[in-house]
C-alpha cells in the first residue's frame, strides 16, 4: 500500500503514541481553546436567535399581526380561511390612553379585541388568569398584563379608570371606567408594560372605527416572504379595491431595526472572537514549526518538497481545529438544547436587568448561522496558519544540519 508522505507526516504529527508529553499537551490545549471559544459562540447564537424570534413572535401575535389592513368595516368575516396562507383575520381597534388606579398610573396602548381573538397561536404566547373579555353593562372589560396590574396595584375584579387620548385636539378628553376581568403574562416585560386588551364593543365607543379600526392578519410561515400577495388575494376576494396595509416589520420598524443592528453587532463581536482564536491557532502552528526546524530541514534534505511539508502541517493544525470546533459545537448545542432550564432558573432569580430580556422562548437551533460560524472559523484559521507555515519555505537545511 502506498501512503503519501504528507499523510504519513500528518499521522505522525497527530498521533498521541508518537508524541512527547509537551506535544500532546500543545495539541490538547489548542483543541480545548477552540472548543472553549465555540461553546459560548454557539450558546450566544442560540440565545440571540431564540430570543429575537421569540420577541418578534410576541409582537406579531399579540400586538400587530403580520399584516394590518386599514379598513373601517369588518373584513374578517369575509376572508376565506380555505386559503391556506392565512391563519387568522381579526377585526381590532387600538389607541392610546392613561390608566389610573388609586395608587398609580400607566401609559398604555389599548387594543379592542373580539372574543375569539386568542386563538391557539396567540394563546401559546401568554398565560391567562381570569375570564374572557365581554362587555358587561356600561362598564368596559379589560385584560391587563401582570406587569401593569402590579404597577397599578390592582387585581382581577378591581376597577380602573382610563383617560383616553384622542386623535385630534378638537376631541373631548374623558375618563372611562373598566373592570379588570383578566390578567395575562407574555413573559416579555417591554410588551407587557405597554399593552392592554379591552372588549371590542367598548373600544369602538372610545376609538372611532374610521381612524382606529383595522383587520389584523396572521399568516402561515411559508407566506412570510410574500405578504403583498396575501393582501392582493383579500382585495380580489372582497372586491374592495386597493387596500391600505402595513406589514409587521413596518409598524414595528424601530424594534425590527434594533434587532437587525443588534444581530450585526453581535456577529461583528463573534468575528472578532474568531479572529483572536485564529491568531492563537496560527501561533500554535508557528510553535509546531519552531519545534520541528531540524526535522523539516532533514525532510527537505531527503527530498521532501516545501509543498508536501506545508500541506502536512496545515492538515495537522486544521484537523485539531476541526476537532476542537466539533467538540465545542457539540457541547454548545448540548447546553443550548437545555437553555430553557437555565432561562427558567434565571427568570426565577428576579434580577432587575433580566426584565428587558425574553426568558421564555422556544429553543430553536438554526444550523445555518452555526455552520457559518464554523466555516468562518476554518477560513480564518487556515489563513493565519498559512501565514505561520510560510516559514517552512525559509528553513534551510544548510544552516541546521551541517557543521563546518
Amino acid at each position, binding site marked *: *500500500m*502506498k*501512503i*503519501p*508522505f504528507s499523510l*504519513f507526516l500528518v499521522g*505522525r504529527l497527530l498521533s498521541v503514541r*508518537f*508524541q*512527547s508529553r509537551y506535544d500532546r499537551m500543545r495539541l490538547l490545549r489548542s483543541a480545548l481553546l477552540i472548543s472553549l471559544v465555540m461553546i459560548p459562540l454557539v450558546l450566544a447564537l442560540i440565545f440571540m436567535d431564540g430570543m429575537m424570534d421569540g420577541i418578534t413572535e410576541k409582537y406579531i401575535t399579540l400586538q400587530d399581526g403580520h399584516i394590518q389592513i386599514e379598513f373601517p368595516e369588518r373584513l374578517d368575516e369575509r376572508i376565506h380561511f380555505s386559503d391556506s396562507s392565512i391563519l387568522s383575520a381579526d377585526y381590532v381597534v387600538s389607541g392610546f390612553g392613561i390608566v389610573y388606579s388609586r395608587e398609580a398610573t400607566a401609559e398604555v396602548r389599548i387594543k379592542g379585541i373580539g372574543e375569539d381573538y386568542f386563538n391557539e397561536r396567540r394563546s401559546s404566547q401568554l398565560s391567562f388568569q381570569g375570564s374572557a373579555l365581554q362587555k358587561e353593562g356600561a362598564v368596559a372589560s379589560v385584560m391587563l398584563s401582570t406587569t401593569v396590574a402590579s404597577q397599578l396595584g390592582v387585581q382581577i375584579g378591581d376597577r380602573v379608570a382610563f383617560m383616553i387620548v384622542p386623535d385630534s385636539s378638537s376631541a373631548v378628553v374623558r375618563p372611562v371606567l373598566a373592570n379588570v376581568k383578566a390578567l395575562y403574562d407574555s413573559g416579555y416585560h417591554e410588551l407587557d408594560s405597554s399593552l392592554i386588551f379591552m372588549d371590542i364593543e367598548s373600544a369602538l365607543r372610545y376609538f372611532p372605527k374610521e381612524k382606529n379600526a383595522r383587520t389584523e392578519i396572521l399568516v402561515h410561515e411559508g407566506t412570510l416572504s410574500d405578504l403583498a400577495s396575501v393582501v392582493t388575494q383579500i382585495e380580489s376576494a372582497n372586491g374592495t379595491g386597493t387596500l391600505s396595509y402595513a406589514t409587521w416589520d413596518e409598524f414595528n420598524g424601530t424594534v425590527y431595526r434594533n434587532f437587525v443592528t443588534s444581530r450585526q453587532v453581535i456577529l461583528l463581536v463573534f468575528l472578532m472572537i474568531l479572529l483572536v482564536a485564529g491568531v492563537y491557532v496560527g501561533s500554535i502552528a508557528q510553535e509546531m514549526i519552531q519545534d520541528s526546524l*531540524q*526535522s523539516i530541514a*532533514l*525532510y*527537505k*534534505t*531527503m*527530498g*521532501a*518538497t*516545501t*509543498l*508536501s511539508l506545508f500541506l502536512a502541517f496545515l492538515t495537522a493544525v486544521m484537523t485539531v481545529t476541526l476537532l476542537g470546533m466539533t467538540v465545542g459545537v457539540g457541547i454548545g448545542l448540548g447546553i443550548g438544547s437545555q437553555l430553557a432550564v437555565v432561562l427558567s432558573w434565571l427568570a426565577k432569580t428576579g434580577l432587575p436587568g433580566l426584565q428587558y430580556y425574553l426568558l421564555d422562548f422556544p429553543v430553536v437551533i438554526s444550523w445555518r448561522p452555526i455552520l457559518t460560524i464554523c466555516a468562518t472559523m476554518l477560513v480564518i484559521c487556515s489563513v493565519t496558519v498559512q501565514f505561520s507555515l510560510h516559514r517552512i519555505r525559509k528553513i534551510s*537545511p*544548510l544552516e541546521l*544540519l*551541517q*557543521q*563546518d
Partner: protein
Amino acid sequence: MTDTLLQFRTVTKRFISGDSSLIILEGIDFGLEEGSSVAITGKSGCGKSTFLNIAGALDRPSEGSVLFKGKDLGGMGDRELSRFRNRHVGFVFQSHILLEDFSALENVCVPAMIRGAMRKEVTARATELLDRVGLAQRLHHKPGKLSGGERQRVAICRALMNSPDLIIADEPTGSLDEDSSDAIENLLFDLVKEEGRTLLMVTHDMELASRCSTVYLLHNRSLQGIS
C-alpha cells in the same frame, strides 16, 4: 570507460552580506566518475561543506554550473531539485541527525516514503539494510536509545535507502570515538562498494580520506589534487 556522474564547471560561490562579498569557491572545475570515491579535505571554514551543498543540490553556485549525468542542476526548480535529492543523493552528516520521534526502522524508511514507494517494499528494504549494519535487534529503538555509532549506522542506511547514485558524507566520523569511527568507516566503504554507489566525502581525517580513490585539498577557494 566510466561515465561522469557529477561535474562542476567553473563554479564560484560567494556570500553577500550588506556591502561586502565573501568568495568561498572560485572557478572550480571538478568531475566525479560513477563508482568512484572522492575525499575533499581542507581547513575548517575553507568551504568544504559549501562544496558538498552545491554537489548535493542543497545550494546553488553563484557562477558556473553543476551537471549531474550531463543535466544542468541550475535549470531545475525547487520541486525538481527536491526530487533529484530524493532519488539520486544520500546524505550522511557529521552529527548523525535522526528524527528523534521515529524508530531506527522508520528513520531509514523516510526517504522511500517521500519517494512514494510501497510500504511493504520499504519496510523490507530498510530491515535488510539495518540487518547488514548489525542493527537487526534495534529496529524499533528510538535514536535516544542508540549510541553515537549506532545512530550513524542508521544514518548511513537512510542515505542508501533509495539506492541513490551519489552518497555525500560530511565528516561522517567527526563526532565518534576512535573505535566507532573505524567501524563506521569500514561500514560506509563496504556498503558503498556493495551497492555500487559513488562516494563524495569531506573530512579532516587524512587517514579516512586516503581510503578514497581520489583525494582533493580545498585551499584558497580552489581544488588541488593530492592523490
